[in-house]
């Protein structure tokens, strides 16, 4: 874009400085410290020491700022996951994630992309041991919390959408087409009262791990959707949640058939009316944005 280019030394300087900035913080005694001993000696030579701080300590300010700015971003996007793990342990995962995938976009929010999947891998496969990790925290609960946190974040930040309202013109193709789920909605499943817990941690500034309440006797389902600039969480009936999940994955006709197959004999008599009601509600709530031919 610019015709003229900066001198070559600037790129070298910025590489050195960038490396120092991104140096992971040491995790000693449950506190984080800048590992100044790992900074490039050439960069240390370049930085001017002061009366109160050495050149390494000056660079360390930027090193800490880099990490804490990003930790704060991740705490904001994953508040429940953060508190289930404790800030210290969660920061360990964030640090490992960003070491492999440092931010590259002007939009700082883009740094969050892929973190939920990273966490799933790290927790399920256990490939990312984190110092100070709490023993006994229920991994499935953390994974479900991460899914819920990610859903809240993604639904809120979804672009403007136009809800889909099927009309007579769609009658012919409806059953063979798939409904396209709105990016401004998410289906949630909870085996623990996690959404309630999430609400409570938003106003709690503590950094320690919180205890998990007893699990629900049966999983609960809900739909998270954006209304205006607010997020709304609505409970779903078990079969309603199943229908919405199937509709997100299969053509409408196939989804309805599969739901029917899955229902018990006792449920069958009321299924047609219920299905009509659930479908109408989903349209009314704006859960779909279009039809996709299969």
């Amino acid at each position, binding site marked *: *874009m*610019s*015709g*003229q*280019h*900066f*001198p070559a030394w*600037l*790129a070298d*300087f*910025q*590489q050195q*400085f*960038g490396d120092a*900035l*991104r140096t992971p913080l040491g995790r000693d005694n449950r506190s984080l410290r800048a590992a100044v001993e790992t900074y490039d000696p050439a960069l240390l*030579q*370049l*930085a*001017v020491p*002061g*009366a*109160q*701080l050495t*050149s390494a*300590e*000056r*660079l360390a*300010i*930027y090193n800490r*700022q*880099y990490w804490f*700015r*990003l930790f704060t971003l991740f705490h904001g996007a994953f508040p429940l996951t953060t508190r289930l793990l404790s800030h210290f342990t969660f920061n360990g995962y964030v640090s490992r994630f960003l070491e492999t995938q*440092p*931010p*590259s*976009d*002007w*939009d*700082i*929010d883009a*740094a969050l992309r892929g973190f939920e999947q990273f966490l799933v891998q790290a927790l399920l496969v256990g490939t990312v041991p984190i110092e100070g990790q709490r023993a006994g925290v229920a991994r499935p609960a953390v994974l479900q919390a991460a899914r819920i946190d990610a859903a809240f974040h993604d639904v*809120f*930040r*979804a*672009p*403007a*959408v136009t809800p889909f309202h099927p009309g007579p013109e769609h009658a012919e193709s409806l059953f063979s087409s798939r409904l396209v789920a709105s990016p*401004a909605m998410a289906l949630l499943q909870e085996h623990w009262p996690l959404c309630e817990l999430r609400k409570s941690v938003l106003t709690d500034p503590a950094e320690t791990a919180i205890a998990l309440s007893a699990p629900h006797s049966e999983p609960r389902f809900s739909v998270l959707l*954006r209304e*205006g*600039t607010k997020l709304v969480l609505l409970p779903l009936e078990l079969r309603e949640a199943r229908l919405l999940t199937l509709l997100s994955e299969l053509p409408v006709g196939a989804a309805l058939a599969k739901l029917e197959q899955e229902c018990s004999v006792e449920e069958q008599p009321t299924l047609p009316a219920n299905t009509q009601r659930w479908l109408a509600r989903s349209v009314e709530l704006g859960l779909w944005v279009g039809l996709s031919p299969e």
Partner: protein
Amino acid sequence: MTAGLPQLPRDALGLGLRIPHYADLFAAWPHVDYFEIISENFLGDAQPPRRHLDLVRERYPLVLHGVGLNLLGSAPLDSAYLDKLCWLAEYVNAPFVTDHLCWTGSHGLSHHDLLPVPYVADLIGVAAERAALVQRQLGRPFGLENLSSYVEFQTSTMPEWEFYSGVVKQAGCWFMLDVNNIYVSSQNHGFVAESYLSSIDFSRVLQVHIAGHAREPNGTIIDTHDHPVTDPVWQLYAHAWRQGGPFPTLLEWDDRIPPLAVALAELGKAAQVRA
């Protein structure tokens, strides 16, 4: 350059628009001369920020303040980013747009911080060329903000203010002068803040920022924007006003954000300080 653009009163008092203030703002629409938005918060396609922006832009003049231009980055400017910035400036009909005289990333990575460079003559030309290009593309005044910094470099051959003035003058752009940053850097690097001000051509000052900072136990001052403006910064602001006022003045408060009324009261002190 400014034909057809809205103009702020030269003595206007503005506030950085922040999410924790939305509820109070939307409930009462208090008098504020203008708001400044962080450009990057509104460049994406998420709907809620756009809806909030629409509510505010209908009622107040808005200026844009960016943190992602990466003017001094060794890589070329990001044309897609600049296109979005131009769109936003047009969308809110901004009287002017500002960003920082710094780099924020390199080698394909973004560090999301405002980082200094060695102040040397051979960076001025390219920095000025880039700033001029940005201003041309925006079609409205573009201001560069001086940094608060925690490190200086042995290879610098001139003080920051000489570098800053050199870029602004050569680019034909504007100063977005942050007096808190001058104070922070003066304390961290041991220069006289008033000397910095004396090098500034106030006829080219688009806006002045004021903000709070925090002092670490070791004496270092960190530009936290999480406190009221300190007395030394008010004194420096008064000095700047005597030297080159009037100029639009904007209060930034980015962390531990108080209620809107408290922030507005802090902003109101500017009028008292300069009276």
